[in-house]
């Protein structure tokens, strides 16, 4: 562990993905081990467990596969979060399973990630799971992708094998209108190009995986939005010291608020002025995205959990008709006519699935029209009608105010991850202009 006193901007949230047996757990174990993020007792536990299994060398995959069933089957079942730091940056790693059955967990990891590492086996190259994972990363607007071409030792550390995969993959991502891609040849088992440069591949002059993670620029690539504060909780002490205090608590999703600002409360549309902003008890003049604050208003409006506070002059439209790109994450299917709950920000409303116009075919990214339903791990387009109007941004504008989840009202299951808007491609105006079609499917 190293002591850092930097900003959260120096924290990289990233996710890993890859097919079963591509060596993902080994890569993560290697990354943790070679960056000296594994402490002595953890290493001893791994050495002990490896010896018990009759393995000659410590199996670094055991550092991360923490559940009984995972160790029994040698696969990763569920997303796990790891924390490590180097002197240059802090990392939160969502280590997600590769098995197709657990794709929803990859969606979970990617939803908050700024970078995704996708592994392929150098012998097999780009396979269906690679395309699926890449499509999901693009869909969730993860800005950066690393394709780690693993098991280079099994192709004799030869450049042509790597180059062919890199070329094929880069073309595929381009088709997606894609995130930025960096392709790195590695051997996770031996540690080539994971933390230390490989002695076997002098034809490769790019960064190792860790070097890239430490230096990749972090930028919110999405369009800047005006301010958004979803009201989480109304603070009313009703105590002798604070008889009339009424504060609207929440975490600012986008933009900046300041005292004296004219604001509008949605969906009611009423306006007022901010008289004070408190940052966990301390008065401040301004507050901005991702800060948890309490806002006090001049007028005694009827505001409750689920409302959205925005600048009076620049409020988003409210709508009861939602078109979204979704990834279905539950075992029970989502069908047209399905009655669900939709959680957006702090608001949960009833909704009806009015149409499922298409399902994405991952092999060639073509739309399959009117599939009737979406089953687990399907990506598709959905139309919903909500019982109450919602102030929605598009996901292209905000991963926070353009996202929602669908919930089964009967048992509370999280059914579907939703991204408001029709388009699949990343919002690059230049690329958009150059292409003759967007990703409307």
């Amino acid at each position, binding site marked *: *562990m190293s002591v850092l006193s*930097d900003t959260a901007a120096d924290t990289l949230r990233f996710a890993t993905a890859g097919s079963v047996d591509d060596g993902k757990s080994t890569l993560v174990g290697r990354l943790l081990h070679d960056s000296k993020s594994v402490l*002595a007792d953890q290493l001893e536990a791994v050495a002990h467990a490896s010896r018990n299994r009759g393995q000659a060398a410590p199996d670094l995959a055991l550092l*991360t596969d923490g559940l009984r069933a995972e160790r029994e089957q040698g696969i990763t079942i569920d997303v796990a979060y790891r*924390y490590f730091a180097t002197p240059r940056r802090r990392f939160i790693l969502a280590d997600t399973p590769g098995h197709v059955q657990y794709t929803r967990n990859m969606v979970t990891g990617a939803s908050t990630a700024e970078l995704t590492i996708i592994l392929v086996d150098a012998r097999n190259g780009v396979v269906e799971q690679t395309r699926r994972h890449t499509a999901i990363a693009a869909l969730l607007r993860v800005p950066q992708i690393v394709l780690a071409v693993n098991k280079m030792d099994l192709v004799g550390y030869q450049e042509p094998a790597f180059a062919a995969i890199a070329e094929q993959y880069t073309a595929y991502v381009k088709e997606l209108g894609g995130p930025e891609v960096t392709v790195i040849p590695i051997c996770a088992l031996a540690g080539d190009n994971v933390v230390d440069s490989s002695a076997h591949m002098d034809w490769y002059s790019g960064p190792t995986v860790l070097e890239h993670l430490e230096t990749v620029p972090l930028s919110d690539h999405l369009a800047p939005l005006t301010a958004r504060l979803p009201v*989480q*909780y109304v603070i009313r002490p009703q105590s002798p010291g*604070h008889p009339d205090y009424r504060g609207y608590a929440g975490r600012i999703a986008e933009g900046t608020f300041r005292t004296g600002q004219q604001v509008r409360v949605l969906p009611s549309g009423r306006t007022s002025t901010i008289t004070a902003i408190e940052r966990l008890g301390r008065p401040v003049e301004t507050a901005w995205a991702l800060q948890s604050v309490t806002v006090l208003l001049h007028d005694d409006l009827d505001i409750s959990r689920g409302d959205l506070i925005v600048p009076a002059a620049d409020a988003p439209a409210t709508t009861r008709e939602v078109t979204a790109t979704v990834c279905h994450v539950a075992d029970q299917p989502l069908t047209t006519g399905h009655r669900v709950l939709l959680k957006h920000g702090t608001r949960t409303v009833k909704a009806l699935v009015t149409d499922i116009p298409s399902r994405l075919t991952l092999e060639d990214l073509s739309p399959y029209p009117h599939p009737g339903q979406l089953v687990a791990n399907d990506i598709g387009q959905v139309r919903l009608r909500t019982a109450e109007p919602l102030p929605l941004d598009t996901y292209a504008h905000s991963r*926070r105010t353009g996202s929602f989840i669908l919930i089964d009202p009967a048992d509370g*299951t999280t059914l579907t991850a939703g991204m408001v808007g029709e388009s699949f491609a990343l919002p690059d105006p230049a690329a958009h202009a150059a292409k003759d079609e967007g990703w409307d499917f």
Partner: protein
Amino acid sequence: MTPALDAVTAAGGGGESPYALSHPDALESEAVHILREVAGEFDNPVLLFSGGKDSIVMLHLALKAFTPAPVPFALLHVDTGHNFPEVLAFRDRVVAEHGLRLHVALVQDYIDRGVLKERPDGTRNPLQTRPLTDTIQRERFDAVFGGGRRDEEKARAKERVFSLRDEFSQWDPRRQRPELWNLYNGRHLPREHVRVFPLSNWTELDVWQYIARERIELPAIYFAHEREVFQRHHMWLTAGPWGGPEEGERAEKRRVRYRTVGDMSCTGAVDSDADTIDKVITEIAASRLTERGATRADDKLSEAAMEDRKREGYF
């Protein structure tokens, strides 16, 4: 517990946004968001409070999250009967100071009634599950805050922020809900409840740095002090009426401190001269042992000890 002293650090170079949050501010803001989500969505939450540093940080965050109103939920402590007396005294003082409501579930009661049996190894950590789950069901708590951090242990690394438990309080890692963006799903059926971990993304070092920044008071056992201890399974355990030292084990005075607070029978002390928060931070940053590896006997019982206990309803 004093209010925050640090100003927001504007980001340094590298062309970053001037609105970047400092690392502790980002963790604090996220944890407060989680605490407020629960207060907004659930009818009867409760916060597990052991008097340990993680639960103390959690309480500090709750005090800040709802200020100037009181914390809108009660505390629950599962008392193994083998707790450090100075930690219990600390617990009661904090509860009184902030006018909080405290539920205590006693493991000793269950042993006295014959519902639970003392284990041959004397550790009572696994015995906490039954009193905990009974109290949750009896009091109809629908959300239970725990101070668990994902950096603690492999099974904890798989834990969601909102973790649904069935009517038997069981955790099933295969059936966890995907947790997407910061949209936490708190829906549950009657008798089910949700375990909530606001400190999921914190590390041990983060917790200590936040304690230093916020000047949060801790029980004295976290700092180096002279203490009567004896060695068992390569750990320094506190001598006491709970059952140590046994024959062949020799008590001696050592300068030690604790990295975690738990049942005396299985929580080990470490040799240390760190008697201030700053020295503790320096010591942890240099340590080659994890918090649990250094101090928890019960996690060493098997490769999946934590997972097995969590499945049954342990926190």
